């Protein structure tokens, strides 16, 4: 329970960005003959294919990062020209990988390379049944050590690459791995602000396995699904008002107007009551101000980790004052858990925004075909 709460706060911390987005899409490289993978929505990374080598660049490893990491990907027999500098050099396709965030798992599974996953810190967080089967078969090593990676085990495992979510500052353990000649790549998928942008990070992993074409087609189908759902939603007659979040200690955290979550609500053709707030992180509000503005919101989604009306009531009586509480119109993703308690939503939602959108459209506009099974969101008990 505490772990989940912490992860909730942790995720909300993810959404703490500064609004300064000074990275526009990277320019085409010097060489006329290069073709780059089309990275349409994601602004945090890019892939430049120079024929003789590929450069995977990550410009937003963490929010507000001023440093762009460049990773050189070389096929068998290729060599990096001396004039090119890179933060890490890899030979692709890789055969073994260590990732550090559950958001990396869906990409691996979609590309069909989950068996190359050799280690992960805090295995219990992983929800996906496919990967859990591998864990049960003891194919994936537990690499968690307190807040970081167990250096000794990771070195012993000797993976081709370690993909870590970027954190500002230093990580002693990752530094040790780099010194041991294990390439470390920073993955900034969680800094993306648009739903499709985050899903597009599947191409980041695809580049490591030479599966760009596969990633393109997977992403395109997600994109098409997403866009058709968006169009569907516009057919709805009403645009309901929506509230999100809940209190942690005495502060109510909810997504800001330009965040990933807010965009999804907008694309589901609903009126997120805080859609006019600027920024992509979280708002911290008092219960009074939320009651004042959102008491009559028709729908309330994602009340942190609460799973029942009873627990909401027991935690704070003020929750019962909301219209959505009285009308039983609260929907949560907290019930969707993996076998060992991991939150499926945190793991899978970033990669499948179309499924999230589908859930939201079904919730907000039941008249538009409500026979779809829910992926993440279920009514609160």
């Amino acid at each position, binding site marked *: 329970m505490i772990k989940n709460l*912490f992860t909730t*706060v*942790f995720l909300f*911390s993810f959404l*703490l960005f500064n609004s300064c987005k000074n990275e526009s899409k990277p320019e085409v490289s010097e060489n006329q003959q290069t073709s780059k993978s089309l990275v349409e929505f994601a602004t945090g990374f890019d892939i430049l294919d120079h024929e003789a080598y590929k450069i995977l660049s990550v410009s937003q490893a963490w929010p*507000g*990062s*001023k440093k762009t990491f460049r990773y050189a990907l070389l096929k068998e027999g290729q060599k990096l020209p001396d004039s090119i500098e890179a933060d890490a050099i890899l030979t692709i396709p890789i055969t073994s990988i260590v990732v550090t965030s559950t958001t990396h798992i869906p990409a691996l599974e979609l590309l069909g390379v989950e068996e190359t996953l050799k280690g992960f810190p805090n295995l219990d967080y992983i929800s996906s049944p496919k990967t859990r089967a591998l864990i049960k078969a003891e194919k994936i090593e*537990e*690499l*968690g*050590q*307190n*807040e*970081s990676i*167990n*250096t*000794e*085990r990771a*070195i*012993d*495992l*000797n993976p081709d690459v370690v993909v870590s979510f970027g*954190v*500002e*500052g*230093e990580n*002693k*353990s990752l*530094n*040790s791995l780099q*010194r*041991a000649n294990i390439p470390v790549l920073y993955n900034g998928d969680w800094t993306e602000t648009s739903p499709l942008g985050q899903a597009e990070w599947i191409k980041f992993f695809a580049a490591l396995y030479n599966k760009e074409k596969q990633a393109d087609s997977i992403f395109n189908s997600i994109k098409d699904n997403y866009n058709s759902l968006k169009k569907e939603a516009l057919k709805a007659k009403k645009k309901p008002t929506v509230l999100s979040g809940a209190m942690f200690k005495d502060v109510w955290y909810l997504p800001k107007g330009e965040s990933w979550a807010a965009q999804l609500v907008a694309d589901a053709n609903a009126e997120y009551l805080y859609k006019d707030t600027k920024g992509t992180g979280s708002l911290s509000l008092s219960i009074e101000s939320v009651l004042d503005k959102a008491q009559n919101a028709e729908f309330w989604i994602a009340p942190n980790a609460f799973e029942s009306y009873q627990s909401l009531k027991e935690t704070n009586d003020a929750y019962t004052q909301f219209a959505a509480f009285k009308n039983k119109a609260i929907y949560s993703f907290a019930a969707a858990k993996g076998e060992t308690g991991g939150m499926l939503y945190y793991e899978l939602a970033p990669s499948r925004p179309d499924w999230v959108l589908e859930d939201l459209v079904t919730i907000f506009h039941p008249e538009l075909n409500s026979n779809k099974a829910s992926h993440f969101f279920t009514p609160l008990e």
Partner: protein
Amino acid sequence: MILLFVVNIALGSVLIPLKAIIQIILGDDSVKEAWQYIILDYRIPKALAAIMTGSGLAVAGLMMQTLFKNPLAGPFVLGISSGASLGVAFFILGGSALGLSAFVVPNGWGTILAASLGSFAVLSIVLLVASRVRDAMALLIIGLMFGSLTAAVVSILAYFSPAEELQRYMFWSFGSLGDISWDALIILSFCYFIGMILAFSVTKSLNSLLLGDHYAQTLGVSLQKSRFIILIATSILAGSLTAFVGPIAFVGLAVPHLIRQWFTASNHWTLMPACVLGGAVLMLFCDTLAQMPLFEFSLPINAITSIIGAPVVIWLLIRKKKLLF
């Protein structure tokens, strides 16, 4: 101690057989490369760091206890580790709290530099004050006040920081001997040896100081000079060690007492080397335990040093019924 050193590098998260370890040390290249790296570049630096940390802090603690004639003094009584903590707090927590962007720092050296700057700042102020204050006791109190002040500033920074930064800061404050590169170790050794040489150069004066400042003066000790050297030696040892491995509690305070009770000695020519050995042994032992060999989690070294050390001190005091100081 040699035995403990060997045990320390033999145990860890990954099971490496003793035979392989011997081969690796003898330079045999045929052993699995990952294991070679683990032993030579992870465990041995860690063990050496443990030895330096334990002995350095113990000697620093001994000097502080004699200088201030206070059994509760330790290497951090001047506020050195508070200064280091403040430096690191600014570095880790300052980002969002103060709106500072991450400074361009060579990778991995950020916390070390921040901690060193913090310690150095406190050292400078302490030396400045020491030259103006005659009474050693006043210096002690000033050091304690620094501790409170910096702790307060850190708590303000922490109040405005997001959870993940707080967690990183907290984990730094738990202390960690692992993940230290050879480059870092070499610089640490340099500081360590300078500190130790200074400490040993002042051993004779420490004996005179056992009689108090006035008698020491009449025995030929230059109070200003000795105090200066003691303060600098302590600060270099405590400051550099804190910068590289984080603040390690207890060792500097307890080992001198353990040694005094065990050897019933007052002569610093006995106590100093005994503290070097005792401190190193304690630290190696605690680190071996903290690694929780064969478990995937590990315990913070600070907790282990206190959990092991405190009961030992209590037992010794009860047995002897009297604090020899």
